[in-house]
């Protein structure tokens, strides 16, 4: 049936110059690559000549065969054995199995020698089975698991994927989750939904997770609306944005805005409620700014903290002067959503950006830790103009679903960060 259905279109074909994600089959290994006909990528001793993938449909699978890259034809899988058939479980068990290194006669040197002689991955696996004292006595499930493991090690198969927020998020979480503050994919989903992120909206963003959240938001906006990606002193890296392979039209909504450090914009309508002493405002600001520039941030942001202009104490009070370098662009927009996702303390950033939001807008703040969100919660509560303030985290567990072998995966993520979400409202003016 599938061969009769036309599924291909020009949009779906890998072209020279595309940013793609290379994923190893049966393995959680991802790599972002730029496809060039002259390029060869080396992963785990396998040489992948990218010219072979050009012209194929995204999602196609390939196998590295020496110097060649061969497209794999996916077969329709055979009917899965009847789950009621318990013979496969009854025929063998491990009561006589001794787990020692002597079970396998081939040593590491033998395998290296075979590889150097150009023996194929399939042949190496056959030899390993021949020389295994225990393979024939294993259960069918155990044999399948053994073969899968050997295949993943000795045969290099991969697929070329079109980048998407899901794939980039999974890739970054596996490769270097510390750089994205351990922002797990389900938490990222929550940010997008709680923040009402969609096309034709004005979104205000501060993030230091390499551009992952920026990319996810841009993907959702599809080139419609406005996204203001702001920063204060250090310009955060946006290196992950390249992985998304966006068209120019997606970027037409994207603006990076530097907000001056010393001042805060006028807090409209509720300034009489803020009675923070000047020292506290100053202290909070200094604590935030004193933090060293983050690793991985753009190298050009070398402005040292001590060059930050001193706050004019006489003007700071409840009535806060307008920020001198504040763009009109920011001042004139009434933003629909505010998203903060950073390793820096979110509370000062939140209080600074809050006045730019229109009534009815959504606020979403991510933090790897709960304490900064407790601080944000308390400050928002005091304001009175922010309601429905909730702090949450999501619990995520993956399952292995196979006949007679269904269970949660042995390892799972211990934490994916915390979220605070709230809605800004307009307070009635006193008459």
């Amino acid at each position, binding site marked *: 049936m599938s061969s009769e259905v036309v599924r291909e279109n020009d949009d779906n074909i890998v072209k020279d110059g595309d940013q793609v994600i290379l994923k190893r089959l049966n393995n959680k290994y991802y790599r972002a690559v730029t496809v060039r006909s002259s390029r060869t990528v080396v992963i785990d001793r396998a040489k992948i000549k990218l010219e072979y993938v050009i012209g194929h449909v*995204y*999602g196609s699978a390939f196998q590295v065969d020496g110097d060649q890259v061969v497209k794999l034809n*996916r077969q*329709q899988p055979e009917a899965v054995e009847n789950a009621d058939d318990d013979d496969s479980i009854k025929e063998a068990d491990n009561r006589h199995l001794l787990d020692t290194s002597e079970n396998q006669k081939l040593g590491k040197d033998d395998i290296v020698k075979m590889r150097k002689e150009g023996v194929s991955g399939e042949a190496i696996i056959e030899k390993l089975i021949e020389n295994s004292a225990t393979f024939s006595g294993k259960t069918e499930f155990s044999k399948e698991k053994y073969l899968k493991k050997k295949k993943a090690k000795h045969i290099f198969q991969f*697929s070329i994927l*079109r980048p998407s*927020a899901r794939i980039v998020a999974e890739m970054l979480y596996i490769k270097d989750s510390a750089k994205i503050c351990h922002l797990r994919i389900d938490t990222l*989903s929550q940010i997008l939904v709680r923040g009402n992120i969609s096309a034709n909206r004005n979104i205000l963003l501060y993030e230091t997770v390499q551009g992952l959240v920026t990319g996810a938001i841009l993907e959702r906006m599809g080139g419609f609306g406005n996204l203001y990606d702001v920063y204060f002193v250090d310009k955060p890296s946006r290196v992950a944005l390249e992985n998304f392979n966006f068209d120019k039209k997606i970027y037409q909504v994207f603006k990076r805005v530097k907000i001056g450090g010393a001042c805060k914009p006028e807090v409209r309508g509720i300034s009489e409620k803020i009675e923070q002493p000047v020292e506290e405002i100053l202290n909070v600001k200094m604590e935030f700014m004193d933090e060293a520039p983050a690793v991985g941030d753009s190298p050009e942001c070398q402005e040292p903290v001590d060059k930050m202009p001193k706050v004019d104490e006489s003007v700071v009070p409840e009535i806060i002067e307008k920020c001198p370098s504040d763009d009109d662009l920011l001042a004139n927009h009434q933003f629909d959503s505010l998203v903060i996702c950073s390793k820096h303390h979110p509370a000062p950033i939140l209080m600074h950006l809050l006045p730019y939001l229109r009534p009815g807008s959504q606020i979403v703040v991510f933090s790897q830790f709960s304490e900064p969100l407790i601080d944000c919660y308390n400050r928002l509560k005091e304001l009175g103009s922010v309601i429905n303030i909730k702090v949450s985290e999501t619990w*995520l567990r993956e399952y292995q679903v196979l006949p007679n072998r269904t269970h949660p995966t042995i390892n799972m993520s211990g934490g994916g960060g*915390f979220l605070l979400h709230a809605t800004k409202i307009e307070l009635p003016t006193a008459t």
Partner: protein
Amino acid sequence: MCWRRRPSCGRRRCRIGLRFSIPRILASSCCSSRSVLVPSSSKQAPAVGRLYTFDFHEARANQARQEFKDHKVDSWVSAAHGDVCKDGFPLPEGVKANAAFLDLPAPWEAIPKVKSVLQWGARVCSFSPCLEQVQRASETFRQHGFEDLQTFECLSRHFDIKTIRMNDQTSQEKSEISFKSIVPYAQIPGHTGFLTFATLNPL
């Protein structure tokens, strides 16, 4: 936009939010809770995308159509009445979906039907409360050539923020240590359903 909100759906709504972040075209089949589900995905397919929904309950399909009209999204979200397990997903001529969402008691019946309206690389999600359904759906996905199967359970845990005061028992005088803490709710929903995702990769 207001809608009735079942506590279970918030989590799955958020969870599928990311998987379907670029649906140019999405085919969705639900036998219930559509009013909760669709507003989430309907945000994601503006001028350039389409969302086709199907329900075998005629009154619900009509109600959904009216709701889409009331929310002014009817130009790109449609509600059709039909049994997708028997009759498939009738999309316009030449249109193929990039993503599909199935909320059915027997998703394995709809999987072969949804396959015929999908693009290569399309991602499908099936939501089911019971493990037996998940097992059967996964088996059917594999039989029909779907790959990259992932099944998840996802729960949202909310916290109260409280000031906690504790006594310092070592002190002779009455002494208190107080701090602010997140406190989980005593009882939370333990399960709503399993989400099974699968990709239709090219042969």
